[in-house]
């Protein structure tokens, strides 16, 4: 019998999923398009009829099925830098959290909710900062939940005080068994795990810390890259092995990187506040050790030049986290963090064809004078690392995270990654945030669909960052832009994306910590009507843009693109775009889809042969 959880078993399950008759789904797609479809969809039905949508649905379903068993690529992939243990909290426990918080504050739950509601209305935390970025106390945390109930999507506020960290840990520890589940999280860790499972060539993970809790969630075949300052410089261990550091003769465990995730259904209420959408809020914790660390000061070493002493206000158990390839060690009362030098970076680039980066965003590259010496050092060092890796021949893909810096400019990101990072991935909400900058104007006339506007934003971003590939994962359709994309390249992108979406659905089920094979059996085939709406809307607008008189050429382009899923750009250096309706079943709330887009992005990158 095939062991559960092998890639073969996963692909078999994927096959079974796609084999189900899709009559009922086809009917739903047609009904929803007719009743709720956009103006472009209504116009399409009038011009072409329903039968044309049916043939398109058949075509995409066929395509989905035909792309479920690709040969695993042999190229080596390194995923860096993010890895966390995600603690998933059931929605019923949110009310328990409110009760506990009220008790701590010695007020009634109703009084607490009133207080948190006022804070949510202002969008400010207890210290006057942005509630969506950081929280300092239980009342902030509940205010952030209430804030995102009304204003989805839920983001990832950081937990910034020791007291709140301890309160959250106490709360999690007090929950009955089964109400809090722990799974692997962090885009890099999860992507490395999935790629290793798919048996792609040498999938490895680099992360600053690797606690026993994180190691426990990995499969044996993932290798963790260790950096050293002497031969052999690069070494590997199984990601199942926890990270250890030494103080004198004593072995110590790496600190734990964790986040706490509260998920809820649309309609869930902390009276009188009600969640508008099914969503989740991720509270990020700084890495922490179980005991206060022995070091008292932090010294950051750039690849060249003088080290920087870094004193940070922190909780006693907290450890710092920096993006980039770093070595670290504890010496006496100092924690040393050393950015990898050029030689080490070139060795990494020589070993890996793809380097998939996460934990880096527009805010990483803050060179402004107000940023402070540490932030400037990080910006300068990470830029240097990216450039060196690219110069040495690695294909860099960045899964962007975080929003724009304080000045809301995209220029620092463009300077750091332009011509260096070849491929970039982000979700549609992040695209909206990143392109809402003061120095990137996306001119959009009225009358175009939301899908087309998304495409125009993606195009503007790809041009501004001089990318060869941009992958925008959405809840309805994915957009993939390729500079000078040929028909073959676009077909490969679509095939890889369809495969990736299927794999990711199963990975998400598997990561839920529940019996995933059983649940997978009950999922419906996975083409969404919203995906077809986006596809129709976008290809209609693209056809209208190229053929404004809406004559025969317009009709021909529209019909062809609906099945092909891509539109080329004949100009040299222009961007072809593929639109892929998302394959995503309705998942039960207990299934946690965080990182799904990031995984999909990595899998599609590698399988598209970019």
């Amino acid at each position, binding site marked *: 019998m095939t062991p559960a959880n092998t890639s073969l078993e996963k692909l078999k399950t994927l096959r079974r999923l796609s*084999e189900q*008759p899709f*009559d009922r789904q086809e*009917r739903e797609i*047609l*009904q929803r398009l*007719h009743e709720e479809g956009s103006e472009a969809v209504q116009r399409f*039905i*009038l*011009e*072409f*009829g*329903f*039968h*044309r949508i*049916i*043939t398109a649905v*058949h*075509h995409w379903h*066929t395509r989905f*099925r*035909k792309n479920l068993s690709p040969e695993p690529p042999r190229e080596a992939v390194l995923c860096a830098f993010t890895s966390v243990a995600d603690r998933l909290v059931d929605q019923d426990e949110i009310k328990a959290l409110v009760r506990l918080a009220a008790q701590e504050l010695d007020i009634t739950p109703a009084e607490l909710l009133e207080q948190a509601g006022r804070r949510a209305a202002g969008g400010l935390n207890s210290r006057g900062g942005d509630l969506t970025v950081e929280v300092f106390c239980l009342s902030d945390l509940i205010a952030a939940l209430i804030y995102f109930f009304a204003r989805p999507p839920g983001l990832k506020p950081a937990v910034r005080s020791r007291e709140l960290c301890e309160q959250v840990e106490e709360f999690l520890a007090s929950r009955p068994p089964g109400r809090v589940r722990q799974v692997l999280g962090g885009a890099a860790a999860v992507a490395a795990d999935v790629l290793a499972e798919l048996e792609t060539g040498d999938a490895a993970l680099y992360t600053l810390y690797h606690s026993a809790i994180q190691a426990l969630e990995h499969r044996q075949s993932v290798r963790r890259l260790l950096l050293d300052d002497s031969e052999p410089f690069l070494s590997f261990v199984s990601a199942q092995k926890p990270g250890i550091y030494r103080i004198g003769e004593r072995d110590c465990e790496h600190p734990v990187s964790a986040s706490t995730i509260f998920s809820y259904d649309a309609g869930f209420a902390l009276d009188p506040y009600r969640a508008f959408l099914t969503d989740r809020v991720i509270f990020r914790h700084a890495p922490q050790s179980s005991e206060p660390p022995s070091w008292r000061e932090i010294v950051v070493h750039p690849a060249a030049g003088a080290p920087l002493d870094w004193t940070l206000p922190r909780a006693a158990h907290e450890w710092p986290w920096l993006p980039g390839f770093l070595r670290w060690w504890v010496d006496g009362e100092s924690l040393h963090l050393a950015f990898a030098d050029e030689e080490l970076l070139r060795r990494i680039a020589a070993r890996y064809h793809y380097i998939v980066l996460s934990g880096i965003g527009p805010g990483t590259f803050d060179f402004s004078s107000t940023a402070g010496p540490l932030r400037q050092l990080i910006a300068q060092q990470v830029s240097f690392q990216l450039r060196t890796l690219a110069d040495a021949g690695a294909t860099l893909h960045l899964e962007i995270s975080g929003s724009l810096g304080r000045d809301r400019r995209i220029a620092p990101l463009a300077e750091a990654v332009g011509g260096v990072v070849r491929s970039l991935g982000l979700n549609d909400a992040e695209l909206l945030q990143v392109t809402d900058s003061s120095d990137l104007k996306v001119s959009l006339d009225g009358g175009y669909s939301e899908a087309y506007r998304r495409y125009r934003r993606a195009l503007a971003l790809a041009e501004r960052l001089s990318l060869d590939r941009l992958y925008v994962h959405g809840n309805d359709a994915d957009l993939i832009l390729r500079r000078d994309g040929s028909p073959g390249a676009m077909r490969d992108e679509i095939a890889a994306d369809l495969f990736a979406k299927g794999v990711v659905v199963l990975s998400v089920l598997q990561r839920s910590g529940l019996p995933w094979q059983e649940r997978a059996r009950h999922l419906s085939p996975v083409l969404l009507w919203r995906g077809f709406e986006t596809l129709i809307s976008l290809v209609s607008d693209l056809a209208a843009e190229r053929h404004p008189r809406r004559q025969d050429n317009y009709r021909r382009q529209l019909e062809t693109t609906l099945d092909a899923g891509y539109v080329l750009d004949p100009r040299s250096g222009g961007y072809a775009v593929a639109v892929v309706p998302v394959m995503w079943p309705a998942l039960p709330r207990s299934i946690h889809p965080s990182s799904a887009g990031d995984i999909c992005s990595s899998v599609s990158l590698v399988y598209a042969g970019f």
Partner: protein
Amino acid sequence: MDRTRVDREKIINLLNSLLLEREDAAAQLRAASALAWIGIQARGRDSAVRGRLNAAAQGRVGETHFLPLLEGLVSLPLSARCEAALALGDLAGGVAVPELARLAGARDAKARLIAVDALGKIGGPEAVTLLKAAAADVNEAVRAEALRSLGQLAVAETDSALPEKAAMESWFLDVIAIDPSEYVREVAGDSLSALRESKSRRSRSSLDRIPTPTTSVSA
């Protein structure tokens, strides 16, 4: 079957307007789409309308109402014919098979796909013959759809002793052995598995109906 829920009068009016709007292709397509929309809605209400291997589905408003349209369909533009074929599959029953047979021979593969899709909903011996022919189409999507439709018709067949049902199994095996497309072979395999599964389900449920033997104990 609850036929009263299908708007009979509306269907008849649309059938008429399809024929009356001969000069206006856009109006013909609109009328055909309105008809198709009724069919799509009806799908959700009544799964029993799908035919079987040896019995075609019955029309929802009386098959004779479709006859004038069926005679005139061949002169309509292809897009309106395809749209009408979609409606016929859901609403017309066995009477539509000859027009769908014509469409199944169209040069356009998308038109053939729609014809096969509709034939698969109607069923009956004539449709089955056409679907078997479509299973040898040059286009793999058409072949796959024909095999999927045949599988569903065979699964829907209640007469498990029907020789055609047994023949279908070996026919699927032949397709699996010779079709050049891996995708089509997979679909044939799925259809075969579904058919075998339905047979074993039926035989299990018939076993369930056998009365438990009673044991008499002699005094």
